[in-house]
């Protein structure tokens, strides 16, 4: 049988990264095919290629055996490929029916006159047939996220999509909504459609798919039949066996006094609801504690709440036994909490300001940089020049705008600033994302040095290799709760992977 869609040796490079490296992928009609991989494994790039958003640098796309070349998303739509994005592409003030025809350039959406009643009837019929009924006259802003997702699926059905790609569709759903979504997907597959289901949650993949293709670091690792796979074997494929302890550098972990204590921390997320649901953890002097987890399980909220950028709704954070005022970043800084944020370009630095300004971003009030209300501009410039030299910021001069630095050098500026403040606690979020190998090693070396000098390091990362290379203790966060904690010595990749994906370790 000819595959509904086939990708042959797809390669896509971005500056400094090979997002897809000769990836092969093939899905049949009537199949739910899961695409599994960690963040940055290349899943999104692959689906963007399949939907015509990116053009591959190399490789072939075949639809029902015929080679195609997509120049724009519209070409992919014409070929019957629809995608339900993680962040919905809906117009909030419009009705469901209006959103469904919007951008449908072949049929109703192209006409000057639309017949709302007829479309509403069609949408209602589709909704009933696939058990995803939504009031066609409701406006998007009135709908829950789960209902909005139904609208996205209705859009695809209305366009008679043969191939439907869903990017982490359950991220916004309750477990009940998720299982009803799975039923709908099954119905659609039974009609002969192809469903490509992108996820990094193992139990979902196991529950819904027929086959699984696993991507890791831009390459496809394997395609297996779901019924032959176990959660454990999928986890091993996803995170990779060989990572293990290869990069680990042993160091003295003279665990000292507790320096950071987080007790029963609750906090709201950006999308409503509680992103943190009672997190408790302790970091001691000289210790690196890693928070492992799949993106969007409360890591960002945890980092921001501990560092005072975000208010907690319940629970507290203490440094050296002293409770911090919730939501007061200045107090956290004063108490010695340094923070290397996830979004280094827009949070970690003010991008248009000079490197010198960014180096004193937190210390400009201090007596070494300011004389009463006046800044000591020369002292600041000299200080910046010294740190640029010491941290080897390539191509950096104090006056250069920070955004002109490469990612790795920008991160060095952030690290230089944060370490220079003589911190007690260092909260680091995805410190090496997007960096090249050399820069990663530099960053890791700095983190080890910080721990060796007695700083308590809280490392939040989605990169298990990094966690295994650095951490003394690993806590796994899942849906805002720490679901397991292991000493690095006794943790296995499979076990951590399983916990990350919401599985229970036995």
């Amino acid at each position: 049988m000819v595959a509904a869609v086939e990708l042959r040796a797809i390669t896509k490079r971005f500056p400094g990264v090979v997002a897809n490296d000769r990836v092969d992928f093939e899905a049949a009609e009537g199949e739910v095919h899961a695409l599994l991989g960690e963040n940055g494994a290349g899943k999104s790039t692959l689906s963007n290629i399949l939907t015509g958003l990116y053009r591959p640098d190399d490789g072939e796309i075949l639809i029902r055996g015929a080679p195609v070349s997509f120049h724009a998303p519209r070409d992919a739509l014409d070929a019957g490929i629809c995608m339900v994005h993680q962040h919905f592409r809906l117009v909030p003030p419009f009705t469901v029916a209006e959103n469904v025809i919007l951008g449908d350039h072949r049929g109703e959406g192209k006409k000057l006159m639309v017949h709302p009643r007829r479309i509403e009837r069609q949408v209602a019929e589709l909704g009933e047939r696939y058990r995803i009924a939504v009031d066609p006259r409701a406006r998007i802003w009135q709908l829950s996220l789960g209902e909005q997702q139904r609208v996205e699926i209705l859009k695809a059905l209305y366009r008679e999509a043969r191939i439907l790609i869903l990017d982490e569709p359950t991220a916004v759903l309750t477990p009940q909504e998720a299982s009803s979504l799975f039923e709908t997907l099954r119905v659609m597959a039974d009609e002969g459609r192809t469903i490509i289901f992108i996820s990094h949650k193992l139990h979902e993949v196991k529950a819904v798919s027929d086959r699984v293709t696993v991507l890791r670091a831009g390459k496809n690792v394997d395609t297996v039949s779901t019924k032959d796979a176990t959660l454990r074997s999928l986890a091993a494929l996803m995170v990779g066996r060989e990572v293990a302890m290869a990069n680990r550098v042993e160091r003295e972990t003279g665990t000292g006094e507790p320096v950071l204590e987080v007790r029963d921390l609750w906090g709201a997320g950006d999308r409503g609801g509680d992103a943190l649901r009672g997190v408790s953890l302790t970091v001691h002097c000289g210790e690196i504690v890693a928070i492992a987890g799949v993106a969007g399980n409360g890591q960002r909220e945890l980092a921001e709440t501990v560092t005072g950028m975000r208010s907690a709704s319940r629970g507290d954070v203490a440094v050296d036994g002293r409770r911090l005022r919730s939501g007061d970043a200045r107090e956290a800084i004063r108490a010695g909490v340094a923070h290397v944020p996830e979004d280094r370009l827009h949070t970690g630095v003010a991008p248009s300001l000079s490197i010198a300004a960014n180096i004193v971003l937190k210390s400009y009030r201090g007596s070494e940089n300011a004389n009463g209300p006046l800044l000591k501009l020369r002292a600041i410039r000299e200080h910046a020049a010294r740190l640029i030299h010491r941290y080897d910021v390539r191509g950096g001069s104090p006056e250069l705008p920070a955004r002109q630095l490469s990612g790795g050098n920008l991160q060095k500026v952030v690290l230089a600033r944060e370490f220079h403040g003589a911190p007690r606690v260092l909260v680091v979020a995805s410190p090496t994302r997007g960096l090249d190998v050399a820069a990663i090693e530099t960053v890791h070396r700095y983190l080890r040095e910080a721990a060796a000098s007695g700083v308590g390091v809280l490392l939040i990362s989605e990169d298990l290799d990094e966690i295994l290379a650095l951490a003394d203790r690993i806590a796994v966060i899942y849906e805002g709760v720490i679901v397991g904690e292991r000493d690095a010595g006794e943790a296995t990749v499979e076990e951590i992977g399983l916990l990350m994906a919401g599985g229970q370790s036995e």
Partner: protein
Amino acid sequence: MIRVERRLTQPKWLMFAVPIGSVVVAFGVMTLVLLVTHHSPGHTFLRLFETAFVGRQSLNATFVSATPLLFTGLCAAIAFRMQIFNIGGEGQLYMGAILGAAAGIAVGNHSGWVSIPAMIAAGAVGGAAFALIPAILRAFLSTNEIITSLMLNYVGALVINYLIFDSQSYWRDTSSPTAKVFPQGKSLPAAASWPVAHVGALVLPFGLIAGAVIAVVIWVLYTRTRFGFEVQVIGDSPRAASYAGMRTRRKILAVMALSGAVAGIGGASQDGDFRHTLDPRGLTSAGYGYAGIVIAALARYNPFAVCLVAFLLGGVQNAGYALQGADFPSGLVGVMQGLILFCALGGELLIRYRVRFARGTRTSEAVA
């Protein structure tokens, strides 16, 4: 296919080439307009230049026109630096004029040493208070300050008109018989007249000098102090500011109050320097506040550049009054001023964006 792309770097030479090019284009288009309307372009441009910038009288008149523009230009630049878009310079100027006039009348005819500081302080308080309304809404309720400050301009205009035309207020002159028929403001006492400085043959209004001093103060504040540093960081990246523990709300209030205060002093300067009464009709028809926004944009929010641009635009405005007459309708003057502003602002786009006439390939891909 024409594509407009954002420039990643802004070459130095563009900073000079674009403004000069814009003015050249403006005069080019204006030449066409003048030819179509049967005026001699050469003659007109020469007169424009002469009445704006050549000779003692022209320059003195230009200083008078430039004074309020300097204040409103600084008002806008102060706020825009932090990406707070205070469009309310107009209304803040009215409020400054109202309180400034009240102070001038209340202090009475004793000494300029009392009257003038009192008027400046009252004007600043009036402008700042009026600017704090959108500031508080923005800081605590995330209301769009562009809309609120703009709307308050209309409120300000209604208030100032009400005080003179529709009420027996403190500001209204009710003593003389003519004033009962034609409403007008009370004349300020002589002590409330601001002095002028004679530099050679030039006459500099006190307000202009005060504005220049304020420009220097603002420059020092924004480039040399912790306050200015915070303003820069917040303006560039509010997230980075909150990450660094800066108090963004307080800064919004402070910057808006400062911005409003400067416009308010501009209002007081109108009372003290030129009008010597609260003059609603003159103030509301001038549109100083809106011109200030244009000036701040052209000056790229740099206080010294604001001084220069205010002077140039003051000259154009002043020349406009001189040009218009029987053979030169005032509408044409407006067209000319409009064209210069339009081209200058349009040229700004070229500094930040580049236009390419090529078959487009996707260039803005990012790692997803």
